[in-house]
């Protein structure tokens, strides 16, 4: 799996109320949710994001609520991967379960500025910052996780395979 996109930088402890405020949780339609993604700290984020862009954030990304609407909103906004120094545990499970790949890497985050173009190879376990010409090694995803992402999340994957 190869991903190339422009980085949007965020800090530490980006919580689920920032990712998608609860007042919009009267629906679970991803497109509706995407309209309000990150509006508390980056108003207009959804209009600025291009399909295929990447979120690069600090520690404890996705802390707070268990709402699966958070990774759904990010994915529907066009973001194809989130790279962070660490993730809150419920968000971590939710992201994979709905088919949004996430990567934990201190080095990649420290070296990335907003607007940098990143090329991510999930098979090889490599991140290249094309803007700065830097190469990083990351933990490659195991095959079943890659399949899960490709199938669009846990449920479509289980429906297709009848198990993991």
């Amino acid at each position, binding site marked *: 799996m190869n991903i190339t996109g422009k980085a949007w930088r965020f800090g530490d402890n980006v919580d689920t109320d920032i990712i998608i*405020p609860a007042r919009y949780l009267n629906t679970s339609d991803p497109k509706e949710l995407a309209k309000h993604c990150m509006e508390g700290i980056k108003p207009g984020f959804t209009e600025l994001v291009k399909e295929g862009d990447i979120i690069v954030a600090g520690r404890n990304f996705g802390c707070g609520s*268990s709402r699966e609407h958070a990774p759904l909103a990010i994915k529907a906004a066009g973001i194809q991967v989130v790279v962070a120094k660490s993730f809150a545990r*419920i968000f971590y499970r939710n992201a994979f379960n709905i088919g949004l790949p996430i990567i934990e890497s201190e080095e990649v985050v420290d070296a990335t500025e907003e607007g940098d173009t990143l090329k991510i190879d999930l098979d090889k376990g490599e991140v290249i910052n094309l803007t700065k010409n830097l190469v990083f090694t990351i933990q490659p995803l195991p095959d079943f996780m890659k399949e899960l992402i490709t199938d669009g999340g846990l449920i479509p994957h289980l429906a297709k395979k009848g198990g993991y």
Partner: protein
Amino acid sequence: MGMTITEKILAAHADLDMVKPGQLIKARVDMALANDITAPLAIKAFKSAGGEKVFAQDKISLVLDHFTPNKDIPSAIQCQEVRKFAYEQDIINFYDVGSVGIEHVLLPEQGLVLPGDVVIGADSHTCTYGALGAFSTGVGSTDLGAVMLTGEIWLKVPPSIKLVYKGSLPKWITGKDLILYTIGDLGVEGALYKAMEFCGETISQLSMDARFTMANMAIEAGAKNGIFAPDEKTEAYVQPRAKRTYQIYRSDPDAEYLFTREYDVSTLEPQVALPHSPDNVRGVSEVGEIKIDQVVIGSCTNGRLEDLRLAASILKGKKIAKGVRCIVIPGTQQVYLDALKEGIIETFIEAGAAVSTPTCGPCLGGHMGVLAPGEKAVSTTNRNFIGRMGHSQSEVYLTSPAVAAASAIAGKIVGPEEVN
């Protein structure tokens, strides 16, 4: 090598003699729950995975507590979907307007969660039931959908950290102050992926309501679960409520902990978490002059009878300050009724507070008290993230019911000593 209470419960539910931190297990679930926001997605996941019948009608709780009584048409449609599923599947523990309470106040009150249980909920504050000596944690809707289908969940056994509380509780110091102080010390990711085990001589002085408050906010330090060893108070709470057998677990003396922290509570003053993070904690005397527009007393953190009693004891015979809106939300119908019989509701209304039917309401900026730009609220809830209670330029200060009530009278953030 000994095991912690968390490890013992998980081992028992995976049919293993012992488990170690980091081990992946498949655990049986005693109670699975979802609310009006998370259930629609979980039902969708359940059906998409080919689900026809839930694993057990009596081991699922569906609680319509967040945006109810419905605030708008989309929320009404969400509840309609859950209601339809609950009737279709004969879900026994289905709570709708009239019987509904805030899920984490309601389930223990109804005896649906018990010591030694594994409880999985599509709500991050599911960790509340650790107060009973259960393993309980929050997950997303897809995971919950899979639990409704299989009755099982895969989990990684968390390492435990030991939090030891020493000394006698000073007047006005509550479970909320202890947990805010702890989160202030550990930070919002200080317990990430870990089990927080609450121990020490002070615990025996804490009521069950106070323990629920503390376990409830374990997630605010990033924890997977928070847990107390059951004692006489737990037994006294559980026995009249339980409709099935339960198991008491306690940590072994040689159990392993990642680290231990000791807190002397005897010198603690009431605590306040300032915007915009639950770990931005200071003593009330260090907060400075902060004028407020709204006070919220309620939520899965502090909407129990003891919380309302404490707030009412301060508000009795006094008036809410001009320009302050004080909203009181009993956690369940039972709490509401008990408060009514004790004259507590009368006290609130005479003081000039608005009393609402049980709902999560303003805690997550849903309804029943959403903030305008620039407004400041003191709230007994659990999160004060940007935009949590309304506009992104509003502010939330988290406190105990005592500080909330005192602040409602003063019109600014003060400790209870200043109005009594």
